[in-house]
């Protein structure tokens, strides 16, 4: 038993004690955090404007949709 093995076992046993529902919550929280980040991004980072300054396309709803599908998948499975 080397120090590397002892450290590995300690880490492994600690992580084994984490219940899977908590892991699911962590993953969902990360995804929800990303959704919030996308919501808070400035307009110039997510939208295209034409020469007159009119917004012609917006990526925010699509990015949110991609992440929302992930939230649903990880909530269900």
């Amino acid at each position: 038993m080397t120090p590397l093995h002892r450290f590995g076992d300690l880490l492994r046993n600690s992580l084994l004690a984490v219940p899977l529902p908590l892991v699911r919550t962590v993953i969902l929280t990360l995804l929800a955090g990303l959704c919030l980040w996308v919501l808070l991004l400035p307009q110039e980072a997510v939208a295209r404007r034409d020469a007159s300054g009119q917004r012609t396309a917006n990526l925010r709803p699509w990015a949110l949709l991609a992440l929302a599908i992930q939230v649903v998948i990880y909530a269900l499975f």
Partner: protein
Amino acid sequence: MRMNGSLSSIDLLVVLIYLIATIALGLYLGRGMKSGQDYFLAGRSLSWWAIGLSLVATDIGGTDIVGVAGAAYTHGLAVANFEWIGCVPAMIVAAFVFIPFFWRLGIYTIPEYMERRYHVSVRIVLALCWLVFMACNLGVMLYASAKMMIVSLGIDWTGYAWAGVSLAGHEVLGCAIVFAVLVGIYTFSGGLAAVVYTDVVQCVVMIAGCLLVLVMALVQVGGVAPLVEQIEQHDQQLADAGLSGNRTDLIQPVDTASPFPWTGILFGLALILSPAYWISNQAIIQRSLGARSAFDASAAYVAGALLKNLIPVIIALPGLAAVAVLPELSDGDTAFPLLAMRLLPLGARGMFVAAFLAALMSSVDSYLNAAATVFTNDFYERLRSTDSGTFEALHVGRITTLALVLWAIGFAWWLSKVESAGIYAIFQTLVSFFQGPAFAILLLGVFWRRATAAGALVGFLCGVFCAVGLFTLNQPSVLQWLGWQPLFKIEEPFLYYSIWAFLMTVTVAACVSLVTKAPPSEQVEPLLFRSSPARD
């Protein structure tokens, strides 16, 4: 050609039409190339939708289509983590932070950014790692896919005797050579534009072929609800026999028998390998650098992320459906091809073979073009101080592409001589040795003003050394010699190598940076990410 003795003339016609259309499109796009920028970045003219489809097609290789379904058959839905949490979050972050940032810098390769931010030594070391990996991986992808086509899909070349082709004993190599020549023709001619627009066709063919198998499988089983019911019954039988079950769970415990424990998936895949892949892998990022605007580059990643949500449904779900249709398979990798052969009618089987070829070709062409770009841009032009905007760069790029095709065929030939299953695993693990460390120094370079060239170089080398060390210490022969127990208790712990290699790189790079002289701010400032981007 016969597939399990039952590939009809219509099937062959479907495959032939796909191949002719792909090559014709590639050759058409190769007309009028004038410079290296046309060849390596498609003249910065690519649309978001083409890049988005190309990203997805490149990510799914021929071996992945069969392998992911095989892993789903053996280990369950957890393999879909690689396409879901292992892609979508990283692609969204990349879309709004890294991709538009790199596009605005006007770079051709990630190693080029490393020189601007750090030093030429960092560029050369990183470019060398990528070049060696991509060149060898070309041979591995060709050989592994050809072998899969011959063995798993049951291709029998004796049917070609009428064409005067005699490949007795060399079927796999022959198949690999055919693949290399087909991909080489249009990549040589059209560069990145040919790669991306043929990827669009290949992505559509790949999705259509796999979807067809999935629909037929669900019809056979009676729908989604009966499929879930049958899988749960099968899992219960496994659990009763003392084996692990729960094939419908994405989140697997730390002590799972599969290679996908949640710790590796969350810390290794979602937080390190996935962002590293989507943000710093040259074969992936190159097409976004060829976008017509920073917005198109971002939009491509968002579109790719949306499409990625669908991919496990079409490639992992057939593996799960095979649990119900073909419950007694000894090798999971045969699940998808057998399912296709059993369920698809004559004529539709050609669509599945075309889907397999599309997946293979879309990955090989991207690695071929990216390797040629790294060689031309980071070695040839850097050492000769020439410019990518010249005709000479185009000429060198094409010669390099040709040389890489020949190299890939030679490497595939060598693999056919060595014939060791471990070699494929080693090359797949190889990327995890340096992808984590490379991503770590990229992150530090983009976000931390104080990161220095010495810190980046020493950190990167220590990270790679850490990953290689852990890999070596996990080899059975080394463990036996040392009299040790394995350090990791799961099969193929490459996700864990990347975690430790990343942490080692960040720690060493930060420490060395803090004790070395800070770079001048006028040099570093334009190369740091700012949250408020400039307009295109």
